[in-house]
Each structure stands twice: as structure tokens, then as C-alpha cells.
């Protein structure tokens, strides 16, 4: 036992902690959009990963045009937000009041369309965005890129701004009121269908922003959304469906576990760790690990 503990290289453990937190923050950004959309409109957005992918591709295009990464980030988030709003109005609005399962089917169809559109438009070869910040710092024997830490900080900042927006702005109050009681909110004069559209657009923008932020770390491909949407689903269930804080905690928790597991097994197999966390959560605490206990 002691031998096993001593055999864990401490430096590797620390490096993986940093890696885990960085991916955890991006995942939190993706998952908080997903959980928001679920919490407020009972829509399980299967196409969320595709919005992430689409955001990354729009980022690639804008970056190729202007060469400015930060401009690409902002424009991509805005464009995908408008696209998300249109998508919601066209496909999800007619389904309000129907079985929520219909929304899974529709968003699954949307994800098929978007994925194949990306493949058709951009081809199967991965696109790359170069990192906007190329400096490194020393982390043990590694030259660790500053950019990754900037991503983590930026994701946290976006989530923070979003939280303030929910807490203090008028639209945020509308969103929270609709989450609590849809009918009552409508009776109070809140335009609930437009709150839905707005929430979907915000969720889409957050997914797109995380897509652009992630793009320099790995290539942009038409299938990149699938991995992320699966991970985000796990995070949302483990964190407690519809709980924003729970999702953020779960995103970091699961990313850390996967990063540590990747010390011993290949990253493809490390995914199993998060699957196991999900199963255990469903068995012992089906309302979510990080959500408050329901009364």
C-alpha cells in the first residue's frame, strides 16, 4: 500500500491537477448552458455539443479572416446565439406543452444535421486556431502554456458574469421566476416563450464561447461536439439536473478524476471513470451529488 502511494509521481499528480481544472472549467461552461436549458424549459439539448462545434468552426472562419482571436471569440458567441434563438423558435417552440421526450428527438435530429453540415462544408480534416498567447511557464519539467490558465480564468469569468446577470438583471429575474413557476410567471406578465428563446440563445453562446476557447488546444473537427455533449450530460446528471452550482462543481470533480485516471490508463479509457461516477451517483444519490437534498 505504502509502495503504491510512493509510486505515484507527485509532479505528475500536480500537472494533472492543473490539466483537470482547465478542462473542468471549459466543461463547466458547456454544462452550465445545458443545465440552464434543461432547468428552465425541460429540454434535453442533444445538439448542445454541436453548438460547441459550430462555435469552434465560426471561430476558425473569423480567425482566418481577421487574425484576431478575441474578435473571433466574441463574434462566434454572438452568431451562434442568434442561430440558437432561430433554432429554438423554429423547432422547439412548437413542442412546448408536449412530452419532453419530443425535445430529445428534435435536438438529436438537429445534431445530425449540424454535424453533417460541418462535415460537408469543412471536410473531415481537423482545422486549427493558433493560440493567442504563446508564452509558457515552467511547471516541473514541463513548459506549461499560459494560454490554458487563461482559458480556465476566462471560463470562470464568463460563468461569474452570467451568475451576476441571473441574480441582478431584469431578464435574470424573469429567468429565475420562470424556472420556479412557469404558469405564475406568465400570469405576472413575463413573456415566457421569449424567456425560453433568450435562455436558449445564452446557452448556445456559452457553448460557442467554450468551443472557440478549446479550439487551440486540439483541432476542430465535425465530431468534436459528441464527446463534449456526453461529458456535459454526465456532469449535469451528477451535479443535479438544473442546478448551476452543482454542474460547475461536478464538471471540475469529473475532469480531475479523469485527469488522474489518465496517469495510469489511456485517455480514451479514462472516460470510464466518469461513467462509473455517474452510475454510483444514480445508485446512491439520484438527485445529484452536488445538489441540495430535495425536501
Amino acid at each position, binding site marked *: 500500500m505504502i509502495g503504491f502511494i510512493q509510486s505515484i509521481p507527485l509532479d505528475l499528480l500536480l500537472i494533472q491537477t492543473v490539466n483537470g481544472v482547465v478542462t473542468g472549467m471549459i466543461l463547466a461552461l458547456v454544462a452550465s448552458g445545458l443545465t440552464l436549458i434543461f432547468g428552465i424549459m425541460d429540454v434535453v439539448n442533444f445538439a448542445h455539443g454541436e453548438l460547441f462545434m459550430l462555435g469552434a468552426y465560426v471561430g476558425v472562419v473569423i480567425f482566418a479572416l481577421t487574425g484576431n482571436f478575441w474578435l473571433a471569440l466574441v463574434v462566434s458567441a454572438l452568431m451562434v446565439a442568434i442561430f440558437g434563438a432561430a433554432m429554438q423558435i423554429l423547432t422547439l417552440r412548437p413542442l412546448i406543452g408536449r412530452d419532453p421526450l419530443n425535445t430529445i428527438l428534435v435536438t438529436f435530429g438537429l445534431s445530425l444535421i449540424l454535424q453533417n453540415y460541418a462535415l460537408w462544408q469543412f471536410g473531415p480534416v481537423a482545422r486549427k486556431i493558433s493560440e493567442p498567447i504563446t508564452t509558457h511557464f515552467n511547471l516541473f519539467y514541463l513548459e506549461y502554456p499560459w494560454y490554458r490558465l487563461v482559458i480556465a480564468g476566462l471560463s470562470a469569468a464568463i460563468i461569474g458574469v452570467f451568475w451576476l446577470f441571473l441574480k441582478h438583471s431584469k431578464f435574470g429575474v424573469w429567468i429565475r421566476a420562470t424556472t420556479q413557476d412557469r404558469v405564475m410567471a406568465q400570469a405576472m406578465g413575463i413573456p415566457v416563450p421569449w424567456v425560453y428563446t433568450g435562455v436558449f440563445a445564452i446557452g448556445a453562446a456559452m457553448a460557442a464561447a467554450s468551443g472557440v476557447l478549446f479550439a487551440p488546444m486540439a483541432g476542430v473537427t465535425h465530431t468534436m461536439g459528441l464527446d463534449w455533449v*456526453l461529458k456535459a450530460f454526465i456532469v449535469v446528471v451528477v451535479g443535479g439536473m438544473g442546478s448551476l452550482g452543482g454542474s460547475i462543481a461536478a464538471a471540475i470533480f469529473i475532469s480531475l478524476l479523469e485527469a488522474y485516471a489518465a496517469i495510469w490508463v489511456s485517455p480514451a479509457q479514462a472516460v470510464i471513470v466518469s461513467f462509473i461516477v455517474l452510475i454510483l451517483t444514480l445508485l446512491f444519490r439520484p438527485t445529484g451529488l452536488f445538489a441540495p437534498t430535495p425536501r
Partner: protein
Amino acid sequence: MTRHDKIYWAGFCVILALLIIAPLVLPEFWRRFLTEVLIWGLLAMSSDLLIGYTGMVSFGHSAFFGLGMYGAAAALLTLSPPNLWLALGLGLAWAAGAALFVAYFSTRLRDIYFAITTLIFSQIFYVIIFTWTPVTGGENGLIFSRPHLSIPFLYDARFSSSTLHWFVLAMVTASYLILRRVTQSPFGMVLQSIRENEARTRAIGYPVERYKIVAVMLSGIFAGLAGVLYAIQNEFAAPDFVYFITSGDTVIFNVMGGIGTLVGPIVGAGFFQLLRELMSRLFGDQFPYLIPLGVIFIVMIIFLPQGLLGFARRWLNR
């Protein structure tokens, strides 16, 4: 026999007869196409037991399909000469095992939670199959040769594309009759009452969880059968089929054809594959056929949620 029964069985016999004659008149390509539609139809039909009759949307049928496939592959690769019935047996056993495992955990949850859980479980099987290269062949999958069609002491010959079609047809027809019987049995009635009102079913005193577990297993076994048939037809097993896109296709076939009808999913599979074939003929192989098919699918959910055969749903189940 009531009048309804007469019409129903007459229709059944006519369609079956047409499907039996089909390989004799169709050219090779369409013969293969029809066999494949039957196999996808069987997969979709198996999940209809959950979606249409129990009210549980499974997004994990690729796991059962894939384990049937790899079970058959294992039997065909380890045994020589390869035996058809052992492949069938092993494939079904593996699919049933996987179904039991998935059912035990996922039936504690309802609605979308059930859908997500089955999806995640199918991904577990995918990751295992994809990364366990020495045993499963990893990314490349397994290639094997088709066993003989053998009935002990009676018949033993190579599959031709016609006998393969009839073999698949026999399996699918038998599965349909069994599933139809199941849905009309007292067991099936309980499943439908779970769909209509789970709390009330529980209150009457039915052990809902146990019924759901059996339903998932039953559904998984038939999905495994589809996997075995697909493996035998195509002589390979690949991890792509275990990926959740296959499960999504299964759900699409169901919704397009009409859930809760059992034959609807087969029609849906045929409709989907036919449109796909048509588009690749009209616009070339590179055409992203899934874009228009996705649009058709979404439009159907919004405007025709009952599916193509939805209008006949009550009549088919009587």
C-alpha cells in the same frame, strides 16, 4: 375469428408472401437492401417494446445490437467449423447479459433520465470494445466468414443471398409474432399501464421495477438478434455500430414509422433507407443525405408525431 382478425391475418399473409417472393424477382442489390432493412427493422421493433409500449425511450440499443454482433463474432472465430446456431446463442446470451446490467441500473430512473442513462451505458460498452484491441480488434473490428446454414441431420449448405434473406425473414417474422403476443399478454398489459400511469400501476400492487427490467431484457435480446443477423450478413463486427449514433437511428426509425405498432419501425427503417438510397442516386455518393433526412425527421416530429403508421395504431394492436 372476428372480421378484424380475418383482415389482419390476410394482410399479414399477403405481406409475408411478398417478402418471401421478393428475392426471386429482385436484382442482387435490392435483395441485399431488403434483407438489411429487415434487420434494421428488427432492431427498431425491439426498441418499440420500450418506446411505444412501456413509455421508456432507450438511447442505448446500440449496446445490445453491438454485443449480439460481437458475441456472434466470438463464436464464429473461436469455433471451427463455424456454427450458425452457436453464434446465435452466444450473441443472444451476451446481449441479454448486457441488457440485464443496463436494466438493473437504468430502470430506477424515468423519462429523459432513463434515456440519458441508457445512452451513457452504451458508451461504456463502446469504450471497452474500442480500446480492448487484443480481444475485440479495436478500431478495425473483427472479420470472419459466414457460417453454413445448417439444420442438424436435415440440411447443410452455404448461404446464398436468397436463403440468407429467407433466414432473416423467418427470424424477423418469428420475433414480430412473439413481440405481438407479448404486448397482448397480461405482461404486456402491465407494461402499457406503466406507460399510461406508472404511479397508479405501482399502487395497484405491480412490482413496476421488475416489469421494467424484464421489458428491457426482452427488448435487448431481440436487439441482440438483429446484431447477430447483421454480423452474419456482413461478415464483420465493427465498434462503429456500438456508438450511440446507431441508437439514435433506431429511435428515428421508430418515430418515422410510428411507435407502438411493432410493424411501424420496420416501415420507418425502410422509409429511411429508401430515401437515403434515392438521394445518393440522385445527387451522388458525396451528398450529405443526413441533412435532408434530419429535416424530414424534425418536420415529422412536429407535424406527424404519430409516424407513418400511426393512423393504424389501434387497429394493429387489437
